[in-house]
């Protein structure tokens, strides 16, 4: 795409072409204003696409075998570890890393911080896709995915935590779709739809906060069903939901910093100056929020250890593993964020955000897989399970990129009169 821009092509961001004579068709918009051969040529030039092709060829095949031969073919069919990587990684880490949607929605729409507007849509998209693919992961893992709607309509178990997760994720997905409708409406040229959504944006955002608080917490509360199975340092009946909720706050913000960095590095052509020029300032703003959440999380973690009387476990091997997770995934990013805010170093904040993201992945894997059944043996996921996870994640990246290239997420759609002038 860069080479094409150098040749004088302008990425499509209006309804009409330069001389105002013709209106772009949906096909033009989908092909970014290029001809089909130009579009394919730029796609083939990108080495990342070749890596993706390899992943989809091999991983796609393995993923299909899961549905042809059952879960037993791609996992170890463990009775002791009913949840493997699909949920341990796919559900339990994708969801907190997608908390950015409700965080930035709250910041801009509820707290009226309109200075965060340039990154709001990216945050919303990150939220929507993360949730959507968490559900995709869930569908890979469920024994009978075609019964997904059973808890909604067929047989209801309203006292179960998972019931709450199912309903909230479903409702929140629709809230997030609605929140992103304005971007789609601009692109597709449907202004009335945008006005309609804008009229209820505050309600949607507050609904988003409620649903997010509860299902982020509920994912943690799911583990309170297993008091003897999760290691005490990763388990606290009264605080589990709060641990998962507070950590999702900095997880979402840090993920947003990471994603925006990737966008800046790999698709600067698609972003406009409103995004690029503000990004360093916004990164530090997000870092401030993340630091507050990190310190809250650290304190409540320590309180939980004190409350449950788990100090003695810190001296064990599990305790060292726990302290490593806290040091690298919580304390270090917190210090680095603080230094970067003080000295105005957006680059350092980006590195700290990456650490925090990895810290969250480690924390969720620790809770769901590594310290789970700590009194039994350690389950190592089947290689096919790993391949399927990589494949679904690659699908997530491709979808993400497809939307970023097209919808006005990183750039502002030019109004018709502006484009004319």
């Amino acid at each position, binding site marked *: 795409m860069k080479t094409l821009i150098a040749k004088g092509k302008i990425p499509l961001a209006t309804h009409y072409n330069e001389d105002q004579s013709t209106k772009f068709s949906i096909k033009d918009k989908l092909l970014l204003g290029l001809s089909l051969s130009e579009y394919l040529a730029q796609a083939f030039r990108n080495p990342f696409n070749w890596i993706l092709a390899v992943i989809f060829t091999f991983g796609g095949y393995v993923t299909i075998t899961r*549905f*042809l*031969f*059952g*879960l*037993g073919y791609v*996992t170890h*069919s463990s*009775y*002791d570890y*009913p*949840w493997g990587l699909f949920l341990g990684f796919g559900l339990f880490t994708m969801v907190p890393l997608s908390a950015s949607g409700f965080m930035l929605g*709250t910041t801009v*729409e*509820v*707290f*009226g*911080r309109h200075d965060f507007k340039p990154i709001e849509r990216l945050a919303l998209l990150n939220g929507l896709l993360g949730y959507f693919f968490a559900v995709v992961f869930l569908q890979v893992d*469920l*024994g*009978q*995915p075609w*019964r997904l709607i*059973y*808890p909604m309509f*067929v*047989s*209801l*178990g*309203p*006292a*179960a*935590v*998972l*019931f*709450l*997760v*199912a309903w909230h994720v479903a409702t929140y997905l629709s809230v997030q779709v609605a929140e992103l409708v304005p971007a789609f409406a601009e692109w597709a040229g449907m202004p009335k739809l945008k006005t309609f959504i804008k009229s209820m944006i*505050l309600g949607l955002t*507050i609904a988003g*906060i*409620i649903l997010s*608080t*509860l299902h982020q*917490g*509920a994912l*943690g*509360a*799911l*583990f*309170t*069903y*297993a*008091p*003897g*199975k999760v290691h005490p340092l990763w388990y606290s*009946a*009264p605080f589990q*939901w709060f641990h998962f909720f507070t950590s999702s706050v900095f997880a979402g913000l840090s993920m947003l910093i990471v994603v925006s960095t990737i966008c800046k590095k790999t698709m600067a052509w698609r972003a406009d100056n409103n995004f690029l020029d503000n990004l360093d300032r916004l990164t530090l703003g997000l870092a401030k929020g993340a630091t507050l959440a990190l310190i809250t999380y650290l304190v409540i973690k320590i309180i939980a250890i004190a409350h449950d009387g788990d100090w003695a476990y810190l001296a064990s091997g599990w305790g060292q593993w726990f302290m490593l997770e806290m040091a690298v995934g919580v304390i270090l990013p917190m210090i680095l964020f603080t230094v970067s805010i003080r000295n105005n170093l957006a680059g350092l904040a980006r590195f700290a955000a990456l650490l925090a993201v990895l810290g969250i992945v480690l924390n969720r894997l620790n809770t769901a897989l590594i310290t789970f059944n700590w*009194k039994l043996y350690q389950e190592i996921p089947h290689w096919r399970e790993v391949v399927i996870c990589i494949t679904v994640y690659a699908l997530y990246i491709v979808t993400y990129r497809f939307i970023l290239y097209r919808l006005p997420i990183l750039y502002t759609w030019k109004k018709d009169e502006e484009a004319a002038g």
Partner: protein
Amino acid sequence: MKAMNRRKFLKGSLLGGAAASVIGKSKNAEASATFGGYPDAMGVLVDLTRCVGCRSCEAACNKEQGLPAPAQAFDDLSLLDHKRRTSEGAYTVVNRYEIPGQDHPLFRKIQCNHCNEPACLTSCFVNAYTKTPEGAVIYDPTVCVGCRTCMVACPFYIPAYSYSSVLNPVIKKCIFCYDTRLKFGRPPACVEACPREVLTFGKRNDLIKIGHQRIQMYPDLYEDHIYGENEVGGTSWMYLSSAPFDQVGFDTDLGTQPILSYVKEFLTVVPMVLTIWPALFAGFHLLATRKDAQKKEEQSEK
């Protein structure tokens, strides 16, 4: 016109009723944390001191439940050399435990303990599980989605899953022979098959008395504890042992609270967030945007 209104009213009250029934259900479940079990629930008392590890119970279970033939025959006792757990093909298994200081090993039969307040039941989001008044914990496989939360929740590692099935994988576990026997007041197949009277079938309340009597009569033989009398809120299947329970593979750290009591801390937060958050954040919004609102007002006054 009036008729219309009445119809609307009826519709509304129906919806309200439906909502109330949903809320009512969850209330029941929460109230049941103090539920001590059905008064006439049946149970089985397993006396480890009598078991010789013949695996007759396994064979009887296999036949009664129509399970697939095992890879190794039931009279092949070499299986006891390693520890096994319940699986999709075996709802009950017997394990052998060498006890330090005792000249003979102890054998322990494992199956669903049929908790008074089952964790599997309370964690199921399609309400597939039922605790029957007879004491059995049964489940409806036709609604099972396959989330396997019940397997995570079960403190005894009992429910298994038919991973090998492509089109209809479901949870598999002991149902106390509910459909074929318990419902009609008959003991489960394993109890009938036991040649050593290891398994005593009866009302749970009576079994607790019998257990304590045995302990009283032979205080040197038995540990002074009935495993399952109070563990995780009490179970229908209970155990007597001559060795400390942790030496025969029992988890002795489970506590006496039903698993649901650990989850309740979160469940109480839910209605609070649902009711307080909207007002709180709408308030934040008004507070944060008050200057914009003031400006607007001033402009309109001009």
